[in-house]
């Protein structure tokens, strides 16, 4: 039977992807400025949305094997790519896609090693 605690790394992956999009939307533009970052409500919302992730990770680590948590948490990367395509219109070419797939496999290997 599926361990109910699997929901925590799944929520964390969703939150991580949403945070990336919010922070990017908060500061994107030609000229980066610290003042603009500090005044961006979207950026701060993304920042504070990250706080529950530490709690969810602790709950997951307490109840699940790390070999399950790491691959599930890495769902955040494909989710981020999908969200950034929908929300920011970012497109990736074939070579970049191959590179990203290699990076996802690499992170999973390093996480469970």
């Amino acid at each position, binding site marked *: 039977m599926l361990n109910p605690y699997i929901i925590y790394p799944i929520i964390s992956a969703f939150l991580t992807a949403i945070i990336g999009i919010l922070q990017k939307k908060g500061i994107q533009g030609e000229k980066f400025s610290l003042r603009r970052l500090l005044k961006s409500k979207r950026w701060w919302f993304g920042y504070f949305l990250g706080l529950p992730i530490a709690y969810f990770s602790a709950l997951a680590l307490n109840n699940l094997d790390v070999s399950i948590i790491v691959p599930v948490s890495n769902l955040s*990367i494909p989710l981020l790519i999908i969200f950034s395509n929908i929300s920011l219109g970012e497109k990736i*070419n074939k*070579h*970049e896609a191959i*590179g990203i797939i*290699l990076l996802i*496999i690499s992170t999973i290997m390093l996480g469970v*090693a």
Partner: protein
Amino acid sequence: MSFKQKVLNSYNWLVDKVKGKELKTVIAGSAIGGLAPVIASYLLRGINLTFESYFRALLSPLGIIAVSIGALSYMLFQVAISTEKISLLSPMASTITTAVTVMGGVLILSESLNLLKLAGVILCIIGIWAISKNHKK
């Protein structure tokens, strides 16, 4: 010049340096950031962890270095994503940080090295190479 102005000036200098070199910045920033958990692990290893001992370690010279490089790495990432695709930079940053932390653990903290770790690091390098070689903004 006020402290606030000095911070803003150094930040603007950093932003100018990063412009046009976002991929390299994220690679370098994440590699440096990957050392922060290694230093933290070195500091916290073997101590009886309480709220007080945790903050004492955090405020030691090495603890301050670990926090500073973590913060620098985070800010460099923020500067880079303001003009570059987050769908590329985010996977790069998380994988490089993990790879450097794993290798730092092996080389500095004498943790064991197995085939899976080595293969993971090699795949990370190939992945970064594939992205940087054919990257189009």
